[in-house]
């Protein structure tokens, strides 16, 4: 909202908008009922693909999967209504505990590390010096390729025993081999893959940092506030809407990591289930074991979890996020 239309509204808009239009002022109010009806007609016409698509491919499937989650539907054997059995079975399923643990550890490590890295580098990059465009582009590039199968394969190689990571760490006395064969640390590969993509939130942080009025820093400097004080009392509050946006989006996405986890750990989340991400398990249940009812219950559990986390974040944001120009108290 604070982003001015200068980037969004092309010059043509300004030119045409400034054209004197005598009847302009009351045009909206004096619109005849016919044009209102026309607006409705056009509105529904334009919405038709979306409405059909939503019913057939999103809203409908959501309700259907909710129903499936109360059945023991199997793609070949069929199934029937079993009430809450899937949900109770889930809590007794050792795979559920494993998948939840792996996913939570990943979210709790990857999201904060990635965002701290992106904020630090963004702050470095908003000082005006030469070469910023180059650094920004170079740091952003991993974000575009990190989720590809190709990079997951490269990652496997980098973290294999005898590979670059193993050699590098042996210089510091590590003898645990490559991360990929070691269930204690294999998750770190995926965390690092996520941190590697710090460029995407960094670009958003940079845009936010440039919106902080310079006068605030100047005034604080005059008042004798040190660097740390300025960071805590100006940068963080002024940036809090952007921080909130990044935390929310990164968390929601982290819960749903699939591609790299699938390539690195396979459907079994190897080694020893240490990369058994929640979504990988859903895939294995639904498309390998064909237990689609049970898998639907897992999927709905994910929706609930992400929904609760999102709600908590929005609640917390009410107190923590500062919107300039609004009275927060």
């Amino acid at each position, binding site marked *: 909202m604070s*982003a001015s*239309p200068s*980037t*969004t*509204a092309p010059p*043509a*808009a300004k030119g*045409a*908008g400034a054209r004197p*239009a005598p009847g*302009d002022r009351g*045009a909206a109010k004096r619109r005849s009922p016919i044009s209102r009806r*026309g*607006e409705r007609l*056009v509105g529904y016409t334009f919405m038709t*693909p*979306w409405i059909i*698509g939503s019913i057939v*491919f999103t*809203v*409908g*499937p*959501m309700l259907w*999967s909710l129903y499936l989650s109360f059945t023991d539907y199997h793609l070949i054997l069929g199934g029937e209504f079993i009430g809450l059995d899937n949900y109770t079975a889930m809590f007794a399923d050792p795979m559920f505990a494993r998948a939840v643990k792996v996913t939570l550890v990943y979210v709790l490590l990857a999201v904060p590390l990635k965002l701290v890295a992106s904020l630090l580098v963004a702050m470095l990059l908003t000082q*005006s010096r030469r070469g*910023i465009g180059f650094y920004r*582009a*170079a740091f*952003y*590039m*991993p974000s*575009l*390729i990190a*989720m590809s*199968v*190709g*990079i997951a*394969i490269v*990652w496997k*190689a980098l973290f294999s025993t*005898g*590979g*670059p990571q193993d050699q*590098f760490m042996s210089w510091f006395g590590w003898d645990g081999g490559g991360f990929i064969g070691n269930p204690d640390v294999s998750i770190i590969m995926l965390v690092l893959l996520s941190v590697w993509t710090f460029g995407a939130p960094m670009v*958003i942080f*940079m*845009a*936010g940092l440039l919106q902080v009025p310079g006068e605030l820093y100047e005034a604080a400097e005059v008042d004798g506030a040190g660097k740390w004080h300025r960071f805590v009392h100006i940068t963080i509050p002024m940036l809090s809407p952007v921080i909130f946006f990044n935390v929310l*989006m990164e968390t929601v996405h982290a*819960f*749903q990591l699939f591609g790299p986890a*699938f*390539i690195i750990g396979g459907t079994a989340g190897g080694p020893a289930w240490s990369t058994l991400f929640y979504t990988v398990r*859903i*895939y294995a249940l*639904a498309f390998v074991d064909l237990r689609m009812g049970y898998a639907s219950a897992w999927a*709905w559990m*994910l*929706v609930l979890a*992400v929904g609760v986390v999102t709600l908590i974040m929005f609640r917390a944001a009410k107190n923590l996020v500062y919107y300039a120009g609004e009275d927060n108290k």
Partner: protein
Amino acid sequence: MSLDTATAPRVIARRRRTPAERVKSAVWHLALLAVLVVVLYPAFWVLTATIKPNADIITDISPIPTSFTWDHFASAFDGMAGVPLWRFFWNSFVIAALSVVGILASCSITAYALGRLEFPGRKAMFAVVIATLLLPGQVMLIPQYLIFSEMDVVNTIFPLVIGKFLGLDAFFVFMYVQFLRGIPRELDQAATIDGAGHFRIFFSIMLPLLRPAIVTSSIFTFIWSWNDFMGPLIYLHDINKFPLPRLLQSYNNTEAVSNYGGMMAMTLLSLVPVVLFFLVFQKFLIKGIATSGVKG
């Protein structure tokens, strides 16, 4: 908002730099160069892994090769199971191109209705768009699969692109809506007075003004569908129809052990279009993500 920091308001007029400033500037560059080395290491490692002999690839921590071979590219071009590599490139390209066209056509009209027209139910529909933005897609996966197999389109690209033609990609609908709302209202009003209907307004005023959003969404759609793995994993089972991610995954499962270099060469080649796209359009991309992000 200017993203180009070189013109940021905080720049002080150029003057001779003091020694202290020079040191500061050097420290700044050193810090960023350190980050740069870490970020680019995997990229350089894979770049040179493609020309190292198989025995050296894994065990080389240094990206600088000690001996060379071009064999890996030859075996990469051979593809897999008798299907040449260009075929997988073509399959990827068809999916990506259809996705771009679909997003362009559907998101612009959906967003125009949601962002600039008034009709009963508009708010509820927009709420559904926002909700799907945060909703984990896995929850729809199974019924969608059942629907597509009922329609007998499994093992075609139909399931991978149909959502894009129906405006179901909430992220881009939302982006277009935000963009359209930034266009002054007076514009439609003036056009209405001149006798233009909504179709005219949409095609001759809104579409041309939407160009920056269209460019950004097209680039992102291309890259994302180029990388997409889950869709092809679920829906495509015939190797002749595989896009690159599916090829890489199968190759990695079966032949990578014996031909590591071929795998690396294939990986590198599969990333080339994305990186090229990025280099050509990086200004657009970064501006797009910054504005849609901040505005969200």
